[in-house]
């Protein structure tokens, strides 16, 4: 910690749980989540907000944690991949990614699933074209995207059938 710049206290909610912390203003949200809270699902890759590997949700909106100050999360809800399932069960997207082999190396996967989740919040059963458009700014180097799109379409369809 740099003693010459006062640190700040922030209170936020992470995956439904309250968190209190003393941060330096310059602390990045990605490092705060990974190094301070041990939530290592969000990854550092491109560092220029292009790839989406660092994606977390801030009040339900996808942001690049690598370029977001932890300060911005004060008083807000942060959702990481670790907060997606409930009661030890997989979220339908997680289930679908596993089912459709939409995961290979897994490095993009947390960001990809969270981004897909924001689509399902708005369009409960999207078409492949809608999924492709929504995931356009989230990169995967391993899969070629086809199985990812299949998985999201399937998760949406099942969610709709279940009346979710």
């Amino acid at each position, binding site marked *: 910690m740099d003693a010459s710049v006062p640190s700040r206290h922030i209170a936020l909610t992470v995956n439904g749980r309250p968190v209190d912390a003393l941060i330096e203003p310059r602390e990045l949200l990605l490092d705060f989540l990974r190094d301070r809270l041990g939530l290592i699902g969000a990854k550092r890759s491109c560092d220029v*907000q*292009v790839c989406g590997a660092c994606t977390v949700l801030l009040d339900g909106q996808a*942001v690049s944690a690598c*370029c*977001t*100050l932890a300060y911005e999360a004060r008083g807000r809800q942060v959702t990481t991949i670790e907060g997606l399932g409930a009661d030890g069960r997989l979220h339908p997207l997680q289930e679908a990614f596993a089912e459709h082999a939409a995961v290979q190396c897994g490095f993009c996967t947390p960001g990809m699933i969270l981004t897909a989740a924001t689509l399902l919040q708005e369009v409960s059963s999207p078409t492949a074209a809608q999924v492709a458009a929504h995931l*356009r*700014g989230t990169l995967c180097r391993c899969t070629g995207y086809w199985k990812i799109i299949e998985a999201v379409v399937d998760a949406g369809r099942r969610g709709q059938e279940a009346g979710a």
Partner: protein
Amino acid sequence: MLRPFEVHEPSTVAEASRLLGHHGEDAAVYAGGTELIPVMRDGLASYRHLVNLKAVPALDRITGEGDMVRVGALATHRTIERSPVVGARAPVLAQVAAGVANLRVRNVGTLGGNLCFAEPHSDPAVLLIAQNASILLARDGGERRVNAEAFFEGILRTVRRHDEILVWVDVPALPPHSGAAYARFALHERPTAGVAVAVTLDGGAVSSVRIAVGSVGPMPARVPEAEEALVGCGTDARALRQAAARTGQTVEVLGDLYGSEDYKRHIVTVLAAKALDQAVARAARPTGPEH
């Protein structure tokens, strides 16, 4: 790596301006941070004081004022994209906002931040210039309006004084028998070229037109030579092609890794033709919303 800084939370524009004035070059406006944070992290700029404009209430509002839409500086690209007010009064702006960067940047990045950072490879300013938008700059002790087309001075440079805050952007309604359009070409994350057109017809002729080009030169700019050549002409294909060609020929272009000069000129011509066609078609529609 970010070096240490303080974040200030002014509650008014005047206070924000005073902070900027007081700390001088050590301070920067902090809004969405999508441009600022990477630049600071890469050591290309260093500020010990960030003035968090998001602490000032209501700078993100989007309101309809008569036919005009007033977009608060802190409106994000996402809220602009989805705003019913923008959709009704300046729908092409919504289309442009929807195409900025990627959805994460759109969730957080602001119009004001985008304009003030003045990254040449960018879309929103181009349309705002074509639609004759004006910008309000305020500082402690005064404010001034600047037309969008006079706001940019060069690569990453605008006329904004260090202690001025961009407060809102006014986008006037298009007059009757007008249409606007934006066409862009992008291979990378940022666009290679963008052309915006706003045209007004009188009978079958062009009574006024504004053509703006962005991303190919140091800053977005109108192309008066192409505009002048089109005023008074008909809207037949030949006239529009000529205006498009004129646009590509006369616009200021810098070759870079997005494209060589001649290719960029060519793409501008292609985009101008598209945008002119679309704008004219929209202008020629019988009365109703200008889409």
